């Protein structure tokens, strides 16, 4: 029988999925207004006006739940010298040549980059979003600021969407990862292979 190691608690998993669902809904309703090619997505939210009404509230849910998640995972995402070694071999990592990679803690450098990308882009989305939030807040701001905010909002959203595409793909690519966020556990072999320092810490081996 495989031995499993607890990676995420039930609270952490719930928190992650609240962020994820909010991201998907905010992403789809936002893309709908991003380019005419995606305008049909407004149908998922009850039409154009409903899309515009709901999007910012979903965004606020995403921001608040992300802040809670970021606070939980902050300390695991500080860069270490091992991350630099690992990044030097990113080509090998991508080509599945994992032999001799440095021992890593709970997260690898790619995961840490994603974390910090989200830490930057989600507050940027919130702040720029408040500036253009009709009809509640936009009228408090001058038009030049609205122009700056729409650009920042689109850019931050784009960076975030690309980051999440990488995040989701990495979870599909690295087998045994998804269950960490669905069941909360990973196999010992998985932990030993991908995050050996964390494995030692958890098991004392």
């Amino acid at each position, binding site marked *: 029988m495989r031995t499993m190691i607890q990676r995420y608690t039930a609270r952490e998993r719930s928190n992650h999925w609240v962020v994820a669902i909010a991201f998907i809904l905010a992403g789809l309703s936002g893309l709908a207004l991003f380019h005419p090619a995606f305008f049909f997505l407004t149908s998922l939210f009850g039409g154009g006006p409903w899309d515009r009404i709901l999007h910012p509230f979903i965004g606020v849910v995403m921001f608040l739940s992300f802040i809670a998640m970021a606070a939980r995972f902050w300390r695991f995402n500080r860069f270490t010298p091992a991350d630099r070694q690992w990044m030097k071999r990113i080509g090998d990592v991508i080509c599945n040549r994992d032999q001799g990679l440095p021992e890593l803690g709970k997260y690898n450098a790619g995961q840490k980059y994603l974390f910090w990308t989200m830490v930057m882009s989600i507050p940027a989305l919130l702040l720029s979003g408040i500036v253009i939030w009709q009809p509640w807040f936009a009228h408090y701001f001058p038009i030049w600021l609205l122009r700056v905010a729409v650009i920042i909002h*689109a850019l931050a959203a784009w960076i975030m969407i690309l980051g999440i595409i990488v995040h989701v793909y990495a979870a599909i690519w690295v087998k045994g990862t998804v269950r960490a966020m669905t069941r909360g556990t990973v196999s010992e072999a998985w932990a030993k292979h991908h995050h050996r320092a964390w494995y030692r810490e958890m098991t004392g081996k």
Partner: protein
Amino acid sequence: MALQSLDIKARSATTTQPPSARNPVHVAKLIDISKCIGCKACQAACMEWNDLRDEVGTNVGIYDNPRDLSDQSWTVMRFSEVEVEQGRLEWLIRKDGCMHCEDPGCLKACPSPGAIVQYANGIVDFHEEHCIGCGYCLTGCPFNIPRISKKDSKAYKCTLCSDRVAVGLEPACIKTCPTGALVFGSKEDMIHHAEGRIADLKERGYAKAALYNPQGVGGTHVMYVLQHGDQPELYANLPKDPSISPLVSLWKGVTKPLMSLGIGLAVFAGLFHYVTAGPKEVEEEETD
């Protein structure tokens, strides 16, 4: 306000060509500020034809009333007391409202298909039933014209009485102007008419009299005859060289198609990585 027509030149959030079989004459409204007496009959006519009633405001010591454009006031008189030369006070009265740009920034910024259209005759019109209330048109407009209604969250502005023009009538404001400061016709005729007015003004000592038809927005279908054509800012901050903000052009230009492409490529990169490099699997019996 909506008046369906086949004669549409541009349509918001639409990447294919709108119906353009017919090619009617370009229209324009000419506002001769040197003839305006500030009677506000045009404001009243606009309210009457479009069935709008703004709130009765309060006197704040100036003639401007209503103080600003709103969903209920699509045109307002802006009164500027300026001393162009020492000791020579001039009362410059500008009828403010949509300029009906040939290159409309509101239409460029709008994300909702068909909420903003530009008719082939040059009129830029909002179709409020397609408006989603996002306020992007505010960012696109170089003249600060569209207003979002507090009641229904839709954007409103002057339609140049597109409903009247479509059936061969002149806009309501033109119909009512008692001094002939407002005239309406083909853009070509209006430019010609303005030339006559400018020559007259120059004779009367306004050496810098000029037509305001800013090329930064491709020209406008509402034009002014300005006594001080070199200083449009005198007229309640009429912009000297208006154009769509480069931020809006960047945001609505090539950036978004390229960004959309980037998102698509990222997804395909994942797919092809999976089918070539394959998944990262761990042997369960892996030993140290």
